[in-house]
């Protein structure tokens, strides 16, 4: 007979997240309840929390990088990235979004979070892609425009997610290391980031294909938009 009680923690997390309660609080409650189910005393649970926290301090070493990044941003790091993107010649929907994807991946691999929906996609990438689409297809419909904009957001997510773990000091790698460490598996960061590369490459290829599809969809002159001649 399977003992289902340990799964209460998962249930608490699921419900807590759906109710949009504070993440830390939800995880804390889930952890404490799970510990109590495992017949641990409160003081033992607190000790586990504390010792785990201390042992895993290395997971937050990205904090040391913040002053450097903040300083570079102060002196125009994001603006420099914008200049690089804007200087692209012969823009098209697929070129703009694909180039941005590559930029996002390369800078992510260096540990720089240069992109973002409010800071790059909305003011720069989406308008550029849309403008490129309109230039190629003057009879573009509203729905086609919206789709191009949405796809610009996709380039941000696809570019961002599948390059996160290439950066050797990323929070994700540190978490993986920590969780597996607790289970007795040791590993070094410089062995780990390498295994993020196959998926990154795959995501570049997949995105390239889809950007070509979106390019076709955006520049297709739809019969519905052809106005009848008087």
């Amino acid at each position, binding site marked *: 007979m*399977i003992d289902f009680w340990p799964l209460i923690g*998962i249930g608490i997390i*699921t419900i807590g*997240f*759906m109710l949009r309660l*504070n993440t830390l*609080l939800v*995880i804390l409650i889930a*952890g404490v309840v*799970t*510990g109590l*189910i495992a017949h641990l005393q409160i003081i033992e649970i*607190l000790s586990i*929390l*504390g010792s*785990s*926290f201390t042992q*895993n301090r*290395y997971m*937050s070493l990205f*904090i*040391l990088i*913040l*002053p*450097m990044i*903040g*300083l*570079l941003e*102060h002196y*125009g790091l994001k603006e*420099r990235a914008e200049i690089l993107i804007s200087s692209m010649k012969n823009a098209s929907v697929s070129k703009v979004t694909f180039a941005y994807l590559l930029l996002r991946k390369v*800078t992510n691999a*260096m*540990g720089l979070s240069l992109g973002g*929906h*409010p800071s790059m*996609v909305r003011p720069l990438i*989406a308008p550029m892609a849309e403008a490129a689409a309109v230039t190629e297809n003057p009879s573009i419909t509203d729905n086609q425009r*919206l789709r191009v*904009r949405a796809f610009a*957001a*996709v380039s941000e*997510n*696809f570019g961002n997610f*599948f390059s996160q*773990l290439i950066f*050797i000091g990323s*929070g994700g790698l540190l*978490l993986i290391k*920590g*969780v*597996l460490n*607790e*289970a007795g*598996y040791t590993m070094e960061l*410089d*062995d*780990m980031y390498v295994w993020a590369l*196959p*998926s990154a490459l795959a995501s570049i290829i997949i995105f390239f294909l889809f950007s070509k599809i979106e390019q076709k969809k955006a520049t297709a002159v739809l019969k519905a938009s052809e106005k009848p001649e008087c």
Partner: protein
Amino acid sequence: MLEYVYQATGLLLIVFAVQTFTDKSNKKRIGTGLFWLIYGFSFTFGLLLPDWFVGVMVLLMTLIAACGLMGIGSYGTSEEKFRMASAKKLKNSLFIPAIIIPVGTILWSKTTGSSALIGLGISSVLALIVALVITKGTVQQSVHEGRRLIDTIGWAAILSQFLAALGYLFGEAGVGDTVSQIVKEIIPNNNLFAYVLCYTFGMALFTIIMGNAFAAFAVITTGVAIPLLMIEQGGNPIIIGVIGMLSGYCGTLMTPMAANFNIVPAALLALKNKNQIIFLQLVPGLLMLTINTFLIYFLAF
């Protein structure tokens, strides 16, 4: 040596805290400052204090965060015009300090053989020095800017360490055993491919539910990957862990729970269908998930 890196991190956090307490424009400077102060102390005194005490400190930080006592201040940030002019002047040299981090870390561990984490710590300091030289900025400026970034991250800065503790508690309570027993009921005959599929799709599914791959990772890896893929089948934990996390990210592409990536941008871009981004990401996301499954199956065993 690693302890020195922790001391440096703790010190930086304490400086952040002091700057916060004196930042009158931050309406929540007491709560915010306290959070960074306690967090900083956990770094500098972590080994000296009894575990349960650190546990209480973690509790306090959680309460500060949950009660919404953290906020944003002012950091002496530059104006748009200044940044544009500076970007034109410094050009691509701006990227040099950033590249030092991965290059320095890898070089360190290759030449000295000791932990890459120490390399990370040393590279961070080196990169900051190089950045100061290139930009001709001040140390105080850099710390304020660092504080700007960490205030934006907020309480989420401690999330990773938190989740590691959760993973451990789940392990103690037998969550792993329960989940792997359930999986075994569904998949008889030790079918390796089915196990891998369970893990990658489990990661994606749980990320869809929770909206956060990090939280899913602690649970699903402990419940599925460790008992079934690593212990029973002897798979390579590094490959399984890294590509497993990437499978979770596939889930992030498909869920409205990951609001910052999928729903908020839809509003920012004035899309009529607030789920359009998710819709466009479904097929590529599933393709990536399938690829990741095959990658683990072929590379990790």
